């Protein structure tokens, strides 16, 4: 099993074999610009998971495959820290403040910021960037909710909202600030923006379909304290990335590697690192609340109690531990989480049977029966990710073992799976869920206002949860910035979540960090993570994480 230990030396020998004696003279011959190639030891090499990338740096493209490198070019007005998304931080806006009861937001433009083409970031650029999603709603890929943008001073902009929008700052962490001059005359619906101009520290140094090099410039507003000026982003599939990591061609990748401990870390424990990072995402059972028996709290509770979460957790990679009752990851929502909900739901078969009995349910022939009506249990899960296949099967198996419930598990490819979710044409689904701030977490999942009937494609509350208390709490939370009030609403929402179980949280989902310390140290791990890195990070996080790296001394 695994790789032979001498693989690297063989690889080198193979390379020498195939390129033969030609290679050295060739290298010598083309000294000039080609040899400007930066040595590997002076480059931070980060995986880009897209295998075929296109020179497309259009910041409004919902689907550009430029992956992590875009983070070093475009920057947002605000930084929404992944580990505390409810506390937005200044970024290109050096300050922000609410007025008119949350209907107006004043942003102060940071001074002394220059684009990577040398021109200064002006208020005009800033207003233009904020205005694009209003002028062209189809480019509102950041999801902003304000209705007006207005410059009110030499360095201040006021955003106007229809409703109190204290909870809508998240979008300002997704918006890219662009150069008005560079965008002028281009149709954003057809323009690739191959040489992007942004306020970030990076500039495209070389582009091929399977690798992008970024050069960090001097004079970046956030300071020059980078460990190196050279970044490269090789594109590779996850499988290939593992080999590149073993060969030391990659420093960092954000990929799941179920056998990473034995196949990677154990091979060189001093240098190699494989760590799950908390992400605030849960793997859960989602119910269709328009359908019996899922609209019965007793059934949902019984299901939740009959699952031995630690058994399910053992089937997947380490780090995917049992989720707590509130579904709120402590690393992300720690300050809101009520202490009594920190624990996970233990296996309680007797309790589950009591719940079923309380609801008048019986299990006959593997199906749920009440008042002479038989309900089969069919659960769908996503076929695209192997881990979900295993997790959902293990969860179904738990229900069979402990309740004698036959769960008919069907796998669906992602698009089908999601489209059933969105239109509410499912029974129960085993899926992942995660969304921004605590408010967004509950709002996207449970907001009953404007709930769409089954058959319509919904972008939120796809489970069709209708609960007056939930709606009232979410509405109240939207219109206040009083921390005490918000905390009390959050507590009430958690209580509803735990007691009414609109979903059954099962496990935490993780972001995986695989890194080698051969050239650089200071990678984010689950012990002492400060900033995310790589594919999953927002621009400020990526830049800060890069600054946190140190040259390896080994």
């Amino acid at each position, binding site marked *: 099993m695994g*790789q032979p230990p001498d*693989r690297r030396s*063989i690889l080198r020998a*193979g390379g020498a*074999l*195939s390129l033969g004696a*030609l290679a050295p003279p*060739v290298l010598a*011959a*083309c000294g000039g*610009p*080609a040899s400007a*190639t930066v040595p590997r030891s002076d480059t931070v090499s980060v995986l880009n998971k897209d*295998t*075929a990338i*296109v020179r*497309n740096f259009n910041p409004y*493209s*919902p*689907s*550009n*495959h430029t992956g992590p490198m875009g983070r070093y070019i475009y920057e947002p007005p605000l930084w929404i820290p992944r580990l505390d998304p409810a506390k937005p931080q200044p970024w290109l806006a050096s300050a922000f403040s609410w007025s008119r009861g949350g209907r107006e937001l004043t942003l102060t433009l940071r001074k002394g910021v220059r684009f990577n083409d040398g021109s200064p970031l002006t208020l005009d650029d800033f207003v233009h960037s904020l205005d694009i*999603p209003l002028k062209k709603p189809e*480019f*509102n*890929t*950041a*999801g902003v*909710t304000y209705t007006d943008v207005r410059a009110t001073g030499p360095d201040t902009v006021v955003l106007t909202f229809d409703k109190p929008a204290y909870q809508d700052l*998240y*979008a300002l962490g997704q918006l890219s600030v662009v150069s008005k001059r560079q965008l002028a005359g281009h149709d954003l*619906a*057809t323009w*690739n923006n191959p040489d992007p101009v942004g306020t970030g520290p990076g500039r495209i140094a070389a582009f091929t*379909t*399977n*690798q992008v090099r970024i050069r960090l410039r001097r004079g970046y507003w956030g300071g020059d304290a980078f460990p190196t000026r050279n970044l*490269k982003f*090789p*594109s*590779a*599939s996850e499988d*290939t990335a593992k*080999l*590149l990591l073993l060969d030391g061609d990659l420093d960092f990748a954000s990929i799941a590697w179920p056998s990473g401990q034995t196949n990677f870390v154990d091979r060189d424990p001093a240098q190699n690192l494989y760590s799950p990072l908390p992400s605030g*995402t849960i793997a859960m059972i989602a119910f269709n609340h328009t359908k019996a028996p899922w609209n019965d709290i007793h059934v949902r509770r019984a299901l939740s109690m009959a699952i031995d979460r630690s058994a399910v957790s053992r089937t997947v990679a380490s780090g995917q531990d049992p989720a707590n009752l509130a579904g709120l990851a402590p690393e992300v929502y720690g300050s809101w989480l009520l202490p009594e909900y920190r624990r996970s739901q233990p296996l309680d078969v007797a309790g589950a049977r009591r719940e079923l009995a309380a609801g008048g349910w019986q299990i006959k022939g593997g199906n749920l029966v009440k008042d002479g009506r038989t309900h089969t249990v069919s659960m769908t899960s996503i076929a695209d990710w192997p881990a979900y296949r295993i997790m959902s099967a293990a969860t179904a198996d738990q229900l069979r073992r402990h309740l004698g419930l036959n769960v008919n598990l069907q796998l669906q490819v*992602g*698009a089908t799976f*999601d*489209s059933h979710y969105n239109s509410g044409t499912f029974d129960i689904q085993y899926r992942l*869920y*995660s*969304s*921004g701030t605590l408010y*967004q977490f509950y709002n996207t999942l449970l907001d009953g206002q404007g709930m769409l009937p089954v058959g319509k*494609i919904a*972008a*939120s509350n796809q489970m069709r949860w209708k609960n007056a208390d939930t709606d009232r709490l979410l509405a109240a939370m939207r219109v206040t910035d009083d921390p005490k009030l918000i905390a009390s609403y959050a507590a009430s929402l958690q209580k509803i979540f735990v007691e009414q179980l609109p979903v059954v949280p099962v496990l935490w*989902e993780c972001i995986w960090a695989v890194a080698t310390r051969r050239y650089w140290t200071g990678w984010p791990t689950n012990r002492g993570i400060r900033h995310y890195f790589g594919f*999953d990070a927002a621009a400020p996080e990526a830049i800060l994480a890069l600054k946190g790296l140190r040259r390896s001394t080994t």
Partner: protein
Amino acid sequence: MSSGTRRRAIAFARRLRFYVIAAWSAVTLNFLIPRLMPGDPAQAVVQQLEVKNGQNLPPQTVEAIRKLLGGVHENIAVQYWHYLGNLFTGNLGISTGNFPTRVTTLIGTALPWTMLLMGVSTVLAFLIGTGIGALCGWRPGTRTDSVLSPLSTFLAAVPYFWVALFALWLFAFRLGWFPLAGGHDPDADPSSPRYWLSVLHYGLLPALTIVFSSCGGWLLGMRNMTLTTTGEDFVLLARAKGLSNTRVLFRYAARNAMLPQLTGFALALGAIIAGSVLTETVFTYPGVGSLLKQAIDNRDYPLMQGILLFTTLAVLVANFLADSVYVLVDPRTRAQGGDAS
């Protein structure tokens, strides 16, 4: 012979007519397929982004993406008219998976890689397979023939990608003789010889797997054709006349057996793009096959449509050329005029 020329011209015109109608049918089919199929590119993009970010998107973002990539709501006839107009101006639309990149740009970037890898290996497989096949068919039952022919049957039945994966595991992963993925050394400067050497190095393993898997088919085809041809009177006659074996083989038997092989070759050349999906997926090669795979994964309908159209037209053109050569070369077609449709 003026009547011969005329007849040939008529045969030519008939073929041309077939290919024009075929091209129109392909173009129309290409227009209809996505419109008959269920699917929502916006949904696909949303899902892709959610996976990438590990987060559900805010409803406003989802709305924006729907607006950006959502379907056209014109009358289907109007759509068809626009579609044809766009085709004539070389506009295949904008990829939703790589918004806002033009489909033509994407195909244009990927095409040279596919042509290089698949073209070279198809030609190699054809030459090797046909050569060995002619020898096997000429002397059926010899040791070479009795080993190679059943082996080819076996090889034709092994899933190609399985062989390729195995080769990748053995030669690239275990032995490290070849790179694992890609089309060239990413650190090499495209103008340097080192770059071109790396192109060779990166392309070698995929090319070898294609040659390995596909030359069996050529071998069997040529073997059987040669076998059939050598039984025909003119070859027996040539042998009876005492012509040397090699002369008979190359001047008479192989030459006549080649004609169907050549048609097959034209079909194979035309099918290069379609056939590249598996190879390029296994080797993460930056060609049209990978692009098609990516398009399917992303439900990138304009890109799928563009590649399908391009592929079909490539096959049509290859076949038309092969047919045209055929009309000129084959005495039978010349005599009868043949019918292409």
